[in-house]
């Protein structure tokens, strides 16, 4: 136990120190805006840094190169422990308890975007910036960031990267060095974020809101600085900008990099996932908007299309920004959006859920199984976008989907047992595990997660972490073999 945990704790100390540095951003914001949350950030940054430094120094005798299982532990430990650190300023400054502070921070880091806070527009700017910054950091991954900036993570880096990056096939790197790959991904991410912020400003937001919503959109986070979310602005240009950037964020960042380095859109056409995502979303938008129009939810078709497109894209890509209380739409529409949130985002994107590539693999496998019934002697490899998928990957996908499904069912039962109604239990767990944000029922877009009791909130926090780390990384902690020598 000691030999396994302490070397990991050593690196984790370092990660904490890096994380403490990110607290300087809201701190500067607080100094600049002379807002009352300043001390909360000073205390939190100092506490996090000191704790990290102490941990790092105390365990330096155990320093060694990280092995595969250390990588898993580091990622799991980071994601479970950092929300506690990130929650300190919220806990200290706002009238909420630790449970809610942890939920809020975890919701940010996992890019879920569900909130327990109301009256967002009255919060100090530093607090809002911190919430959005958490989303942004968690979007591409804190550990991937650490791999990019800390060269010492070198060899162990690949294991860590695999434990944190979403998707079933993670063996291909953009560049030979993992550190470089991490840097490139972060560069693409930062570049797109900057483009989004400028576009939002041009579309009519003030700079502060542009930055916050830019962070939200690229991380597919879903936090907003207003209780009414994007509905507050009631502006078509803003919605269009956000829709486009949320779509981009739901695609594989490696594809963005390829497209950028080849100076052309060819890379997107060769990405089977991207094509499937755009196809499914386009068909859904048209279908749902027609449905809502004929059901009479909207007076005219353009309005129906406008609101359907924004909310559907946002929920399906697991972002969670919204313009309407869509839980009041006829049930078919919000349920379909929730269904899409389980599978639309691409591997290697900042979205959640089981990812489009796994959906494609499952569909093709089902198709292969059916064909096999008709032609028992048929030999056919499983291909996605012209590439043969190894059976090993297919099995991993099957195992993943099973665990994912079982996690959802188990957690829903836990919520039901705690006394929640069916719709709230179902939607809170699905929205949390997919890192989508608002659910339906009590936790719908018109309300928030503040209505849940402490136990239910913790269950939601657990669901978010499970979803962000794609189940395996968390569940592997509970396998006895990991802890044996």
């Amino acid at each position: 136990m000691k030999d396994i945990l302490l070397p990991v704790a050593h690196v984790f100390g370092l990660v904490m120190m890096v994380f403490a540095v990110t607290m300087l951003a809201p701190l500067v914001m607080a100094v600049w805006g002379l807002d009352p949350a300043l001390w909360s950030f000073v205390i939190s940054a100092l506490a996090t840094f000191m704790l990290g430094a102490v941990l790092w120094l105390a365990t330096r005798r155990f320093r060694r190169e990280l092995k595969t299982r250390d990588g898993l532990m580091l990622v799991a430990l980071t994601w479970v422990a950092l929300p506690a650190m990130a929650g300190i300023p919220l806990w200290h400054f706002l009238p909420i308890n630790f449970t809610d502070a942890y939920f809020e921070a975890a919701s940010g880091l996992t890019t879920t975007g569900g909130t327990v806070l109301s009256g967002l527009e009255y919060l100090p700017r530093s607090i809002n910036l911190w919430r959005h910054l958490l989303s942004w950091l968690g979007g591409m991954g804190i550990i991937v960031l650490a791999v990019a900036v800390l060269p010492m993570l070198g060899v162990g880096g690949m294991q860590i990267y695999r434990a944190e990056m979403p998707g079933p096939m993670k063996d291909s790197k953009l560049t030979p060095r993992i550190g470089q790959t991490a840097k490139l991904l972060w560069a693409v991410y930062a570049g797109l974020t900057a483009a989004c912020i400028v576009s939002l400003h041009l579309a009519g937001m003030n700079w502060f809101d542009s930055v916050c919503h830019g962070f939200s959109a690229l991380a597919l986070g879903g936090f907003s600085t207003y209780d009414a979310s994007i509905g507050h602005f009631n502006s078509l240009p803003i919605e269009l900008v956000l829709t486009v950037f949320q779509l981009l964020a739901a695609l594989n960042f490696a594809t963005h990099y390829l497209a950028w380095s080849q100076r052309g859109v060819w890379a997107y056409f060769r990405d089977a996932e991207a094509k499937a995502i755009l196809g499914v979303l386009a068909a859904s938008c048209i279908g749902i908007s027609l449905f809502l129009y004929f059901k009479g939810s909207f007076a005219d078709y353009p309005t129906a299309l406008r609101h359907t497109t924004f909310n559907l894209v946002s929920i399906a890509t697991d972002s969670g920004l919204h313009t309407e209380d869509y839980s009041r739409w006829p049930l078919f529409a919000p349920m379909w959006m929730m269904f899409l949130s389980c599978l639309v985002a691409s591997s290697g994107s900042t979205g959640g859920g089981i990812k489009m590539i796994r959906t494609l693999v499952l569909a093709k496998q089902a198709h292969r199984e059916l064909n096999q019934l008709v032609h028992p002697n048929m030999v056919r490899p499983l291909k996605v976008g012209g590439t043969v998928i190894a059976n090993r990957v297919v099995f991993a996908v099957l195992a993943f989907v099973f665990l994912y499904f079982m996690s959802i069912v188990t957690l829903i039962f836990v919520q039901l047992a705690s006394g929640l109604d069916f719709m709230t239990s179902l939607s809170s767990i699905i929205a949390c595990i997919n890192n989508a944000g608002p659910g339906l029922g009590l936790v719908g877009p018109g309300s928030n997660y503040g209505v849940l009791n402490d136990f239910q909130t913790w269950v939601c926090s657990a669901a978010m972490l499970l979803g962000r780390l794609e189940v395996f990384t968390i569940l592997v902690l509970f396998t006895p073999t990991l802890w044996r020598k």
Partner: protein
Amino acid sequence: MKIIILGAGQVGRTAAYHLSREEANDVTVIDTNEEILRDLQDRLDIRTVSGNAASPRILEAAGIAATDILVALTNSDEVNMLACHIAWTLYRTPKKIARVRSAAFTEREKLFGENALAVDVWISPEQLVTEYVARLIRYPGALQVLDFADGRVRLVGIRALQGGPLVGQELRTLREHIPAADARVAAIYRAGKSVKPEGDTVIADGDEVFFLAARNHIRTVMKEMRREEKPVRRVVIAGGGNIGVRLAGELEDKNQVKLIERDGKRARKVSEQLKSTTVLHGDAADEELLLEENIDSADIFAALTNSEEANILSAMLAKRLGARKVMALINKPSYAELIESGAIDIAISPQTVTIGSLLAHVRRGDVVRVHSLRRGAAEALEVVVHGDADSSKVIGRRVEDIALPEGTTLGAVVRGEDVIIAHHDTTVQADDHLILFLTDRRHIEAVEKLFQGSASFL
């Protein structure tokens, strides 16, 4: 440097390991075996691509367009040469190194060059290992003998033993002992740890000493470290593979060579190739065969088969039966460490021998030759200095004024045909070849920087 390695066999994997642990290198490995690649990627910070190494598409996927060095190490000569040619024809890859085993190719010099096969450097691990073993046999008592400046200077590793006149003495007395010859002790390892060689360092019994000397002085210097051993007469080689046969061919003129091969057909073929070597058909680990062939009077027993386990066992057996000195070819570094402290005198690691010839091409600055030592922990280099006293940090300076990184020794200077053993007052001139010894490979970047200052505007 952006490097592509073709083939993840023994040599390819070792090359990937050595090259990727230097921060400055980006390594991509191509092989057809996905299992090996996955395993390799888990352990090293490299990229892997699975597929046919000679296919332009696969090379493109590995990023050949921006690659500085292509190292083709698959087990097929043809694939290696073709891959290099493709890389040059389509992408003008600056440097192409191919492993070419068959002498049928390498003896035709016209085959390689501008208007022929675009292979800049060909290496034959078997040839390198054969030469290495042959040198060890020529200098009995040496653990390692490595060539610099076309063999004019040699670096010799030797275990100092009681009975050598210098053992128990300070290093500075070396000059008084042998006024006719000059040598420079580059490194001393005592119980596995490096001891800095200075004038007042005392050489102890059992030390592993590395010294540099001109070729004709080597025997004189070796005599200082341990009692001279009788020259080798009788050699027994186990294994009639590529290395065994080459070695027998090289030694058979001057020595009495016996070669044991297990496979009857192969033994027959080998006997046709060799002239005076006695080829025996049998098992090298067969006690009776060894006794019958007078193993107890053999000066050297070299186990050079494909199987390292068989090499270890037969070498241990030969040692027990009375062979004076036994060597075994061993691939796994962990095995080599295990046995060198035991019954076997010398472990020969083919990868360590081969890797040096690759490293020379990766080093920045004009590095002519690199030898990897002590399983890659130490390194010996031959560097050419260019420029003038203003542009270079070394030219026109005395050895004592050059800011060498920690653990680095400047052992010798080769100026044209002359070999000058470096002393504190030796002055470095332009176009000198310097022989350096680094006890800690991690300082290599500092050394590169020191000598690169002049190369930057070439």
